């Protein structure tokens, strides 16, 4: 089966920039699928959308719609549309005529295109606001109209460029709900660019873009349990990194030996990844646990993070672990505590030595809301 949208070997460099913005990007989106491109700001995700839409030309690579290259097709004739970060509604048109814009371009009559537009406006729950001017709308309403306008263009693929990032939490959640409704009703093919993990979770698959490269492309669950690289793990956040060595399916670090899932048994230097909610605290000096000193107790959403500095025999920087516990821990900085690693199913390794990153292991580059 041919993918609805294929990006193959896309490289891009902004004029005068030393580093490429995008380096050899390969991505496929199947018909009716939703792909999220997740990356920190400056990772090149917006550029990727603009290249796909034809608003920027790539240095190398190809953009295909249904298997046909559209690299030489002008953006207005490519069978895709973009919803930008800001709503950018046309100020000289009413809300209804904004939604009817694409149909008017196709030569449909005013009444015909307005009738169609009204259906899309109903779909985004703004059926009554058609006669209003864009200026009279709230931020959330503006983005809904922009979504209706993009949908009414009825293009093969819809590209969304962080369209909800400027909205507050409540509005963003309702926009996510609306996106789910729209997908159920119209089954569009969607590429969503975002820096928000919760937003990426709406998609069928998530491509993680770091410094112009796709580091990982899989379901959101896999990102949380089995990130392909340290960069992906840090982007997702909540991982403890323990540098060490794998020998015969067992990882050895300052926390001692940890058995790994059998599939991960390649020998050599490797960083053990353990999610903070996978670790547990026990009484200090229990057998089979490592003991450390509590340095901080931090509120994290409805949980608490206990940061434990592990005793290290070597003079290198001490390893700090973050353990997520339920509210109401009695531990205070200065207390001693034991830390228990989860079993093999809760662990993951990424081969290679780790740079000095102990401090960053508990903080994410992303905003996890």
């Amino acid at each position, binding site marked *: 089966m041919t993918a609805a949208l294929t990006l193959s070997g896309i490289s891009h460099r902004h004029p005068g920039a030393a580093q490429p913005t995008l380096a050899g990007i390969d991505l496929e989106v199947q018909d009716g699928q939703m792909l999220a491109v997740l990356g920190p700001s400056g990772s090149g995700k917006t550029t990727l959308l603009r290249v796909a*839409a034809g*608003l920027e030309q790539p240095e190398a690579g190809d953009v295909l719609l249904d298997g046909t290259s559209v690299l030489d097709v*002008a*953006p*207005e*004739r490519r069978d*895709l*549309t*973009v919803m*930008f970060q*800001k709503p*950018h509604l*046309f*100020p*000289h*048109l009413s809300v209804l005529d904004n939604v009817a*814009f*694409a149909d*008017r*371009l*196709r030569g449909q009559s005013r009444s015909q295109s307005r009738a169609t537009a009204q259906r899309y406006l109903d779909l985004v729950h703004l059926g009554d606001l058609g006669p209003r*001017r*864009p*200026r*009279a709308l709230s931020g959330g309403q503006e983005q809904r109209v922009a979504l209706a*306008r*993009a949908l009414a*263009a009825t293009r093969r693929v819809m590209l969304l460029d962080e369209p909800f990032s400027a909205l507050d939490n409540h509005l963003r959640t309702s926009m996510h709900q609306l996106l789910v409704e729209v997908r159920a009703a119209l089954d569009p093919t969607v590429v969503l660019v975002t820096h928000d993990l919760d937003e990426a979770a709406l998609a069928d698959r998530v491509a993680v873009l770091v410094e112009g490269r796709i580091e990982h492309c899989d379901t959101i669950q896999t990102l949380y349990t089995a990130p392909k690289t340290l960069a992906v793990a840090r982007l997702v956040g909540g991982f403890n990194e323990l540098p060490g060595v794998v020998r015969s399916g067992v990882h050895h670090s300052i926390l001692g030996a940890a058995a790994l899932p059998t599939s991960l048994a390649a020998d050599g230097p490797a960083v053990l990844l353990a999610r903070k909610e996978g670790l547990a605290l026990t009484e200090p000096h229990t057998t089979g646990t490592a003991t450390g000193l509590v340095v901080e107790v931090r509120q994290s959403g409805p949980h608490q993070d206990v940061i434990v500095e592990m005793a290290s025999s070597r003079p290198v920087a001490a390893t700090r672990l973050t353990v997520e516990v339920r509210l109401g821990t009695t531990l205070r900085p200065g207390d001693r505590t034991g830390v228990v690693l989860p079993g093999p199913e809760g662990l993951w390794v990424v081969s290679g030595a780790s740079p000095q990153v102990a401090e960053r292991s508990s903080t994410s580059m992303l905003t996890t809301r």
Partner: protein
Amino acid sequence: MTPPLTRTAHLRAGRQSEGARLVAPAVILIVAVTGTAIGAVVATSLGLLPLVGQPRLSADGFTALAGDLRAATQESLLIAIAATLLAAAIGLTIATTIVRAGHGVRLVVALAVTVLTVPHLVGAAATGLLLSDVGLAQRWSGISPASWPELVGGRWPWATVLELAWKESAFVALVVTASLGRRYADLREVSVVLGAAPRAQWWRVLLPLAAPALASSSLIVFVYSLGTYEVARLLGRAYPEPLPVMAYRLFTGIDVTARPQAAATAVVATGLALSAAAITLPLVRRLGADR
């Protein structure tokens, strides 16, 4: 010390009276000078402020030279309408070029600003040197002075209209460009991904967005062209002369009894400009509504 919040609230409360105090000097100066001047012009035109003799209310100022006044009004309207249409068309074309082209834009903008700083009088003098029947264009082209078209001081006010359109198109271009601003780039991109080809981008996005600025700058060009003296004085012919030239001639002539006629001419010119503004402003406001 006052806590910060209270101080901010105090700042906001003081704003209304502050605004009135800020605009007052400018408003008073304008009202005093223009009110006095226009009042004096109207009074003079009605015979109430004669240079010599007793004040006497009469419409002689308007009726004594009614034929000349009508011809001058026609000439003024012809010049103003032609110059406005040309300036608007050229200005919009330049603005389109500026907002569309990526590079070389700064040169076009710099040229437009340069044109704007050149005084109309200099422009008119240069146009005269260039387009007259013994001008540079005639010498360069090699056409004999006899067959050179009467651009300067001829039957039709070609040179006057061209000079006004040349300088005012730069004004229109800069006003329209500024009003489009960054917003146009974003909205054009939206229209592109919704399927708008270059022609549709111009019709459905650029033109509607530019319309309020285009209308208001055209109005300014129109009233300026109605009221300008030096351009038509240097480039026009003796008869028919536009209203400002006629007013000057009558006002500065030796015949002091012609002053009511001069003032009447000024009243007609002012009335035309005010009517144009009164007709156009609701349109400008409607175009710019809800933006």
